[in-house]
C-alpha cells in the first residue's frame, strides 16, 4: 500500500486551473521524482501534498484512508515533512534552534517548561554527524552554512523527527555541481531508511541519478508515472518540454540554420568576386 495517494486531484484558483486530474502514489523506500518546467504545476502539487492547500476536487489518501490536511503542521504530525526551497531555515538563528524549531525539547521545573538547549545541541551534533557534517559549533548561525549544508540540516531534521514521507522542493536547483551531488546522496540515504522521498526538480539529470519513479507534469496535467526501467532520460526531457513543441522547435532551429547557410554562401561568393576584380586591376 502506498503511503500517500492522490486520486484525480484538481486545484483551481478562481478561474485558473492550476492542476487537472492528477493521480500519484508514493511508496515507502522509493524516490519519486516530480518533473516539470516552470509553470507546470509542481509548486501547487507540493503545496497540496504538504498541507498548505487543499484539493478543489479529488482525494488525498494517507495509508489508504482519505485525509483532509488543514496545515503543514497537520501533515507533519502524520509524518509528511516538507523542505521548502528557500524557506527551510532562519539564517540568524542557531543551527540547534532551527533544528528543533516548533518541537523544542523541554525540561520541566514544576509548572515551568524550559528549552533544554544542552540536549538539543547534543542531538543536533549527533544527527548531522550521521550524514557526514561535523559542526564547529551547533550554536553558530545557520546563515554561516552553505546552501547545500542548509538543505542537509533540513533533511536531517525531517528524518530525525520520524518523517515517513520527505518532500523536497527543488533542493538542488540553487547549488553548484559538488554540493548538488552531496544533497543527492542524502536523498538516497533517506530512501534506504524506508522513507518515501518526493523529489521535485526541473533538472532531469539530478532526477535520473536518484529516482525510482518519475511523474511528469505539463501545464497542470500529468503525462503519467513511469518506472525507471520503462523510460529514458531523453523521453522525460521531451515530455517536460511538452513533446510536440520541442519537435516543432527543432524544425524551426533547422530552418534558421539552413537560411543562414545560404546567406553565408552568397556572402562568400560576393567576397570572392571582389577579390578577383581587385587582383585584375593591380596587374
Amino acid at each position, binding site marked *: 500500500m502506498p503511503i500517500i495517494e492522490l486520486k484525480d486531484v484538481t486545484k483551481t484558483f478562481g478561474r485558473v486551473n492550476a492542476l487537472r486530474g492528477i493521480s500519484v502514489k508514493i511508496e515507502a523506500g522509493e524516490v519519486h521524482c516530480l518533473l516539470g518546467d516552470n509553470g507546470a504545476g509542481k509548486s501547487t502539487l507540493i503545496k497540496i501534498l504538504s498541507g498548505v492547500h487543499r484539493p478543489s476536487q479529488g482525494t488525498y489518501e494517507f495509508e489508504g484512508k482519505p485525509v483532509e490536511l488543514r496545515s*503543514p*503542521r497537520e501533515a507533519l504530525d502524520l509524518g509528511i515533512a*516538507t523542505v*521548502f526551497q528557500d524557506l527551510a531555515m532562519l539564517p*540568524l*538563528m542557531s543551527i540547534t534552534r532551527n533544528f528543533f524549531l*516548533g518541537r523544542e525539547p523541554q525540561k520541566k521545573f514544576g509548572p515551568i517548561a524550559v*528549552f533544554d538547549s544542552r540536549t538539543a545541541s547534543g542531538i543536533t551534533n549527533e544527527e548531522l554527524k550521521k550524514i557526514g557534517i561535523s559542526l564547529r559549533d551547533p550554536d*553558530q548561525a545557520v*546563515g554561516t552554512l552553505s546552501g547545500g549544508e542548509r538543505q542537509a540540516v533540513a533533511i536531517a531534521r525531517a528524518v530525525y523527527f520520524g518523517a515517513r514521507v520527505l518532500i523536497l522542493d527543488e533542493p538542488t536547483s540553487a547549488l553548484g555541481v559538488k554540493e548538488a551531488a552531496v544533497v543527492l546522496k542524502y536523498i538516497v540515504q533517506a530512501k534506504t531508511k524506508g522513507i518515501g522521498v518526493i523529489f521535485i526538480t526541473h533538472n532531469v539529470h539530478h532526477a535520473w541519478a536518484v529516482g525510482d519513479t518519475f511523474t511528469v507534469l505539463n501545464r497542470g496535467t500529468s503525462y503519467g508515472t513511469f518506472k525507471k526501467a520503462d523510460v529514458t532520460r531523453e523521453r522525460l526531457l521531451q515530455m517536460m518540454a511538452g513533446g510536440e513543441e520541442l519537435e516543432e522547435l527543432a524544425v524551426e532551429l533547422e530552418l534558421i540554420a539552413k537560411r543562414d547557410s545560404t546567406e553565408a554562401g552568397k556572402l562568400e561568393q560576393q567576397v570572392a568576386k571582389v577579390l578577383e576584380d581587385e587582383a585584375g586591376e593591380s596587374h
Partner: protein
Amino acid sequence: MPGGENGVFASAGRFRRNFLEGRMANLRKLMVRPELGAVTALIAVFIYFAVTAGSQGFLTTEGTINYLEVGAEHGILAVSVALLMIAGEFDLSIGSMIGAAGMIIAIPVTKFGWPPWLAILVAFAFSLAVGYLNGWLVVKTRLPSFIITLASLYLLRGLTFGLTIALLNYTRASGMGSYLNGDPLVTIFSGAPLGLKISIWWWAGLTLVLGWILFNTSYGNWIFAVGGDAQAARNVGVPVARVKISLFMLTAATGTLLATIQVLDTGSTDVLRGELAELEAIASAVIGGNLLTGGYGSVFGATVGALILGMVQQGIFYTNIDTNWFKAVLGAMLLAAVLLNNYLRQQALRSQ
C-alpha cells in the same frame, strides 16, 4: 617550517597559531552578541560623564539613582518593545496607551470614587484588549504594524483627550494621593524598597523574566522564528498569530504598568502623558542591538539601551552643556548604533 631540527619551533608555531585561532573564535562569538555594541557605548558614555561631570555629582549615589529612574521609564517599555521587534513588529501606540491608562485609573478614582485597585485592573484589562486588537488586525490584514499602530496611536490619544475634557473639563486629573492609603494593589506599584524607586525594580524584574523567556523557552524560540521568517515558522508548526498577538498585548500592558507607577507616584496625570515614549522605547531597543526587521536581538540589550538614554539625559544635566542638546545626542547615538549593529550582524553571518 622544513627540516627535522626545526620541529620544536614548528610545533611551537602551530601551538601559537591554534591558540590565536581559539582566541579569535571566542572574540568572534563575543562580537556577534547583539548587545555588544550597546555595552561598549554604555561604558563610553559612563566614562565621558564621569570625567566631565564626575565632580558635579554624576558619580554620587543620588546621581546614579537619578539616571536609573529615568532609565527605568524607558526600560520598562523597551524590554517589551524589544520582544515585539524581534518578532518583526512595531507598536507605536504604546505612548498613547500610557496617556489612556493614566486617565482610566485617575478619573474613576477621583471622580467616581472607585477603589484604586479596581481602576488599575480595568486599565490593565483595557490595555490587553487594545493589544489584542492591534495584534489581531496586524495578523489578519497582513498590513505593516507601523500603520495599524499609528492609527491606534491617534485613536487612543484622541479618545483620551476627548473623553477627559468631556468628563473633567480639564486635560489633567489630579488628587489621587488621598485615595491610595491601604489599597492592596498600590503597594506593588509605588514606593521605593531599599531606596530605589519601584519603577527600577519592575525594570530589573522584567529584564530578567523576559530575557530568560526569550532564551530558555520554546515561546522565546518562536519569537525569533516569527520575526526571522513567519512563513518558515508557520511551516514547521509555530503558532505565528498567537505569538504576535500575545506580544502586542505585552507591550500595551507594559505601557499601562508605567502609567500606573507614574500616576501613583505623582498623584496626577495628563492627557499628553507618554507622548513620544514609543519612539524612545524603539530607540533604546535599537541601540541595544535589536534588529528593526526582526529575527535578531536581546532583552538585555534593550535594557542597556534604556540605561544609556537615561544616563545621557541626566548626565547632560550635570555638565555645562545645555540640556537642549539631548535630542541631537540621542539622534547621533542612534545612527552610530544602527551602523555598528549592522556591521556586527554581517559578522555573525560570515562563514567561520
